[in-house]
């Protein structure tokens, strides 16, 4: 079984061919062909530029990820440092003999530093 056409092939009709050639004649103006070539190249340039624009994020994505990772590390370190500082300040507030609160309470209530510290600790 073949799909080859077996019917009679009509011979070329000169009148028909002449009319077809007139209808389908390609532009004869050379400037049109040059223009077409330029339009094709312009579209290619635009397409290449667009492709490059899309490929930029791939490169920047790696840089961005590195920067984000670095930022997370720095932020983590800063948070830890801040927490340590808060703890130290809280500790110093309690045990530091020169604590401003202790001195103020002692002076205001005519107490010794030890009594003032005790009062701050007990909250009374």
């Amino acid at each position: 079984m073949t799909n080859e056409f077996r019917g009679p092939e009509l011979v070329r009709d000169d009148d028909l061919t002449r009319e077809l050639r007139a209808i389908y004649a390609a532009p004869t103006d050379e400037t049109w062909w040059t223009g077409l070539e330029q339009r094709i190249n312009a579209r290619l340039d635009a397409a290449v530029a667009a492709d490059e624009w899309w490929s930029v994020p791939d490169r920047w994505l790696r840089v961005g990820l590195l920067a984000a990772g670095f930022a997370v590390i720095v932020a983590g370190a800063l948070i830890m440092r801040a927490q340590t500082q808060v703890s130290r300040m809280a500790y110093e507030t309690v045990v530091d003999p020169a604590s401003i609160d202790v001195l103020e309470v002692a002076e205001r209530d005519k107490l010794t530093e030890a009594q003032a510290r005790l009062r701050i600790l007990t909250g009374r």
Partner: protein
Amino acid sequence: MTADERALVLAAQRGEREAFSELVRTHERRAYAVARAIVVNHEDAEDAVQEAFLHAYRALHRFLPDQAFGAWLHRIVANAALDITRRRKVRDADELPETVASPFRDPAESSELRQRLKDALDSLPARQRAVIVLHDVEGFKHAEIGVTLGIPEGTARSDLHYARSHLREVLGAVRSEL
């Protein structure tokens, strides 16, 4: 494919834009002829050619240098032209009849016979129109038409037969009226 063309294709595959531009310069006329055989007007043919070269550029890495570049390109052009024809058919179906029935008329094509023939060509299925134009106007052989349009050679022969037969009827009718 000539040695020069092969060198151009290889250079274009390496990303040399000037080499591809040279291929455009070499093949644009034939590409236009293939597109024009399929679509119904000059503007669509130009669109198809532009689309096809863009597609060819992007698909160039898949082209095997042992193939014939022209045949490969013509296939792409034919597909682009058929796409445009399909889109136009859908668009025209949505448009008002007045807009459809106002085709551009070249003064050189104003004879009754030519206009009737043009209408008859437009009424042919796109593939039959392409086959008769590629064969009778552009001088393609049946096998080349088959490769370009992606159809068996026998189908190209039968399409040519039916297209010629239909156009001859139109031609005969116009002649008897005039």
